[in-house]
């Protein structure tokens, strides 16, 4: 749907009919709902609810305050807010601000009166002082130009923001803020090739602020300005003083160019499409780009180009880091005939790519990357690469980079770093630098001859197809394992088909003579969530005054046993006690299956609110874990009901996330009051269940995948509130262990490398049989003691202490000590001779920086080696974690053996984000390249930190 600028410019500017301001419309009654008020007006289709302006005392004051601050910053008298800009700029801004006729519209999340009636939390309660304005559909869009003029342009469907800017002569603007009528947040719209993004069309009555207008301003000025404009509501003639309006000046755009060039539609703009290269990292085919996917990206990719088949697993924990691991199968080389028969060669490796700086108008995005970073170094290489978008809508993306090692296998240019340091002229082989593999091969990075690589991709407008062409940095004449390949052409060509949002299929021609096939499955872990369709419908919250509520809803007398059952049904809590303490009702939650506590407490509040007399003013939920209270949530009943049954009149409310106001979360000491127990429930003595477990390992010499499916029975005998006996029994159902005959060599006590013996000695095993007791020495200090068959390989006794200070909730400190003995291979009650004392001091720290959660442990490991484990993870808002860990101990790389030190990558996914019912369980997917004996920890069933940690 192409439109022409001429039609924009030559359209007459009609006066805008306005249905009425407050003075024209009947005043709302105090206490009247907005939905009722609007229905009373009898809306017609001509009215434009997006232009509905609800102006309250609060919202008017907020806008006036912001205007005052903005004016102060433009004042000729220097002050703390003064903008460091020219007098001309200040004058232009002042003129613009003076032109605005403040409307003070408060944010409204929805404007459909029937929907408001359905969802009372979106429906404000009005008072007679409120002013309400309704418009008929505006016919124009307002543009604040780089010159700080307000330019109005006739609205046309589907046009891009750029078209309106062009009409106002702001052709050069590379971006703009788009403030849609009735929308909560301004959109940052990219209009140049380098920042083009998916964007909506401006709606009738929208405001556009060209980014060029912000020159020499600062962040708070821009924020305040956006909020002031937002509070103006939909643009119409009475939004501004008429003389301030500037119509598009036809002289600024020549008629001839207008007619030859169609105006851009909003659908012409799309986000940059990033797709995986053959190696899993973002790029073209063999070559990487500087692009990093959005944080949360996770992908599993299969790619094949003779003789290599790659299985890549890539993650992006941050917007600046892409990392992962891979297995490479080399079809024409053997793993090792003595240990693996005819199995082809397998190689494990880890990659990482870091963004150095982001793309801007003139500078490309630049990244540095490492391939096969800590593996055997077979395919190790490093690269520095730059990427730049171009084309009117940024559909082209070009890369240029320099590679070393395997990435620069062509080796046709001297290493520029060699001019600075001569040692960079040659690259030591990986075996020279690391005999065991698995180490950071620091002495090889960026060494030796290099090669240039580069290429370009083109994404079609619908983002379904991407074409790729590249100049390969490798000529395949220096391949590892003397496996050189013929290259007929250094140009590789490919095409990516993207049928949906989770699958890419790539095919191409590489080396001029080999077909390539790639399949990538990907998702965004940070946005994983599942509607809770299997949960009972939340109870309705009646928007009645509490006094009336008691009479109409709460049964008399209150049946606390029913409340307990309702809570169990609604939130899966096992309630041990309900206690009334003065005007507070306290619910003790003995067991729970909750990850999202906001949702659970909302549901519980609804149960209590509907069933309790109005004299109860406060709800308290005490979460008890193994007999120890770990958290108390306190809710002010009236505040909560109000937050759920009407839209807050506070001007900023709509911008806040839909969680409880923090004010209602407060612990009130009421120890002087007497508890009245209203209900109690005995906890079951014995619990248990049946299920299945699955174990697997990849990349070993006896087969690429070794796996076992077992039936599992587990049970728990509760001896006291805080003491219990847990046991699990497994029976192997299916496995492919018949060829499993390889036991890895070891120079250390064999604390973990008897894996084969443990999994193949008996079908029936008793992995755990452990007695545990817990307690609290103070509000902040927890302890536990345990003994028995602690895990599949060790039995013994141990104790743990955890200090979790309430005054510093981001930090906890734990200590554990264990005396353990190795178990018999059949995982029965037999024991082997090896025994050791192991334990750690562990610091748990939510750093607050980039959502990083750190776990640092120091102590003695199972092989009696001593050292440190560092575990860093990014935790997303939905509870998903992407992390990595490494352990260094006083064991040398040679003693440790292959891999040099223990390390791994993991992803933790709460079941809650994958299931249609609430769950507190967490799925941990851990990838550890090798299981060795150095740096091995006891796998404890219960860790106090996890036991006392509630979900989000």
């Amino acid at each position: 749907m192409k439109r022409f600028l001429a039609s924009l410019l030559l359209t007459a500017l009609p006066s805008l009919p306005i249905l009425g301001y407050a003075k024209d419309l009947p005043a709302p009654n105090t206490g009247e709902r907005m939905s009722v008020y609007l229905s009373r007006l009898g809306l017609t289709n001509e009215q434009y609810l997006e232009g509905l302006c609800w102006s309250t005392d609060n919202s008017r004051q907020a806008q006036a305050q912001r205007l005052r601050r903005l004016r102060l910053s433009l004042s000729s008298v220097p002050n703390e807010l003064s903008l460091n800009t020219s007098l001309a700029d200040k004058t232009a801004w002042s003129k613009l601000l003076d032109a605005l006729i403040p409307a003070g519209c408060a944010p409204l999340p929805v404007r459909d009166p029937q929907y408001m009636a359905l969802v009372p939390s979106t429906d404000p309660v009005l008072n007679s002082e409120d002013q309400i304005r309704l418009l008929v559909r505006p016919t124009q869009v307002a543009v604040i130009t780089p010159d700080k003029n307000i330019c109005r342009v006739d609205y046309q469907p589907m046009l891009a923001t750029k078209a309106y800017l062009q009409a106002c002569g702001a052709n050069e603007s590379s971006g703009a803020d788009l403030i849609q009528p009735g929308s909560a947040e301004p959109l940052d719209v990219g209009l140049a090739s380098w920042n083009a993004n998916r964007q909506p069309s401006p709606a009738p009555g929208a405001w556009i602020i060209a980014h060029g207008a912000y020159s020499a301003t600062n962040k708070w000025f821009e924020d305040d300005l956006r909020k002031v404009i937002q509070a103006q509501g939909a643009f119409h003639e009475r939004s501004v003083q008429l003389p301030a309006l500037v119509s598009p000046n036809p002289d600024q755009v020549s008629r001839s160019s207008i007619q030859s060039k169609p105006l851009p539609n909003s659908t012409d703009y799309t986000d940059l499409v990033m797709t995986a290269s053959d190696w899993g990292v973002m790029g073209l085919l063999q070559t990487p780009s500087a692009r990093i996917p959005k944080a949360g990206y996770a992908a599993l990719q299969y790619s094949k180009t003779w003789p290599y088949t790659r299985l890549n697993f890539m993650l992006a924990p941050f917007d600046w880091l892409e990392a992962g691991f891979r297995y490479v199968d080399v079809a024409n080389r053997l793993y090792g005939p003595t240990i693996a028969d005819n199995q082809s060669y397998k190689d494990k490796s880890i990659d990482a790519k870091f963004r150095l700086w982001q793309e801007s108008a003139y500078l490309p995005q630049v990244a540095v990357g490492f391939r096969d970073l800590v593996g055997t170094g077979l395919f190790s290489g490093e690269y520095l690469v730059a990427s730049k978008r171009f084309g009117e809508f940024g559909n082209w993306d070009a890369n240029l980079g320099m590679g070393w090692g395997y990435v620069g296998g062509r080796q046709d240019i001297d290493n520029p770093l060699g001019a600075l340091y001569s040692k960079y002229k040659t690259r030591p082989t990986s075996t020279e630098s690391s005999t065991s593999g698995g180490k950071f091969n620091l002495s090889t990075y960026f060494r030796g001859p290099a090669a240039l690589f580069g290429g370009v991709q083109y994404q079609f407008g619908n983002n379904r197809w991407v074409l790729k062409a590249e100049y390969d940095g490798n000529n395949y004449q220096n391949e590892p394992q003397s496996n050189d390949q013929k290259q007929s052409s250094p140009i590789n060509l490919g095409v990516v088909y993207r049928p949906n949002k989770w699958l890419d299929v790539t095919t191409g021609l590489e080396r001029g003579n080999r077909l390539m096939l790639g399949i990538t499955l990907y998702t965004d872990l940070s946005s994983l969530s599942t509607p809770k369709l299997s949960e009972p419908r939340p109870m309705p919250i009646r928007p009645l005054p509490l006094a009336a509520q008691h009479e109409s809803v709460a049964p008399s007398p209150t049946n606390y046993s029913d409340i307990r059952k309702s809570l169990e049904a609604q939130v899966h809590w096992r309630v041990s006690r309900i206690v009334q303490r003065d005007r507070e009702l306290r619910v003790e939650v003995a067991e729970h299956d909750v990850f999202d506590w906001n949702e659970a407490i909302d549901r519980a509040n609804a149960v209590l609110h509907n069933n309790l007399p109005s004299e109860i003013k406060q709800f308290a939920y005490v979460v008890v874990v193994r007999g120890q209270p770990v958290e108390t949530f306190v809710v002010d009943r009236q505040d909560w009901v109000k937050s759920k049954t009407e839209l807050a009149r506070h001007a900023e409310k709509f911008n806040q996330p839909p969680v409880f106001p923090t004010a209602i979360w407060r612990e009130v000491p009421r120890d002087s009051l007497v508890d009245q127990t209203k209900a109690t429930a005995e906890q079951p003595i014995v619990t248990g269940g049946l299920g299945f477990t699955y174990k697997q390992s990849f990349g070993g010499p006896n087969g690429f995948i070794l796996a076992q499916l077992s039936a599992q029975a587990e049970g728990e005998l509760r001896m006291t509130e805080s003491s219990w006996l847990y046991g699990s029994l497994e029976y192997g159902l299916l496995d492919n262990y018949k060829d499993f005959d390889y036991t890895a060599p070891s120079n250390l006590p064999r604390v973990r490398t008897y894996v084969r013996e443990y999994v193949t000695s008996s079908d029936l095993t008793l992995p755990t049989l452990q007695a545990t007791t817990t307690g609290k020495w103070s509000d902040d200090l927890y302890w536990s003691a345990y003994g028995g068959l602690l895990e599949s390989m060790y039995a013994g006794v141990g104790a743990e202490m955890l200090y979790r200070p309430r005054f510093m909730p981001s930090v906890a400190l734990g200590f554990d000590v264990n005396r353990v003995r190795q178990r018999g291979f059949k995982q029965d009650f037999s024991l082997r001779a090896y025994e050791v004392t192991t334990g750690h001091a562990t610091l748990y720290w939510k750093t607050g920086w980039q959502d990083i959660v750190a776990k640092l442990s120091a102590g003695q490991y199972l092989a009696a080696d001593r050292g440190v484990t560092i575990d860093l993870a990014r935790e997303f808002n939905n509870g998903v974690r992407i992390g990595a860990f490494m352990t260094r101990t006083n064991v040398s790389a040679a003693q440790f053996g292959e891999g040099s030190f223990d390390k791994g990558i993991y992803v933790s996914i709460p079941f809650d984000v994958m299931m249609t019912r609430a769950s507190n369980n967490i799925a941990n997917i851990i990838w550890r390249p090798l299981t060795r004996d150095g740096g091995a920890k006891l796998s404890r069933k219960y860790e106090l930190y996890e036991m006392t940690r509630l979900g989000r």
Partner: protein
Amino acid sequence: MSDLGLRRLALLSVGLVLTSTVGCTSMGASTARIIQDAVRGSSASIPANLDQSPYKYLWARAGNSESLLVLGTVKNAETDRTNPAQGPIEVWFTGNQEILRIQTGPMGRIVATTGLSVNWVRSSIRQTQDGWVRERDVMPGWQYGLVESLTRTQSRLVPRLARKHLRPEFIVANRAKTWWIEYSPQAPELGESVYAADANGQVIAGYQCLSAEACIAWERLGR
């Protein structure tokens, strides 16, 4: 209506006190509460004795999800000044805070929705010298003021789309005497729409797409 990305619509079979809402042109406080009560009701299958029910129900299917909607209000034609001759607009509610607005009369169709993943904020059709023209505002994406011509074809035979998407019981019952098939060359992604009219020419069922992925089949149940 999982294809719309919306929460699954629960089947409603609630005994609700809705008498005062049917036929209302505006919605008072009591009506609002009654609708809240209605749409938060429990799930059940289609009631067997619909004709005896004082309430009106609409069957709808999107993707693999079937739903029963309950009639909340009816906007009289006088309040719909852009399209006065085409009959009142019924406002139907799902059990999951979603709203369908359906034009009654011979031009019956979904004219607006709220709470779905793709919504027609408003739409209207009018007849011009060149034929039928539809204007609509679509969210998300702020696609406002889309103007499209419509071709309308009448048929006595049951169209393929109707057989595929409407309830077999409806087809067998032979309630539809005339079928209307619509298509807009300016919006090919929406495909064809089908509307079934009874002996009085009133549209009683339909199938139409709000976007390429979000298509809804619907049928008025009972009287």
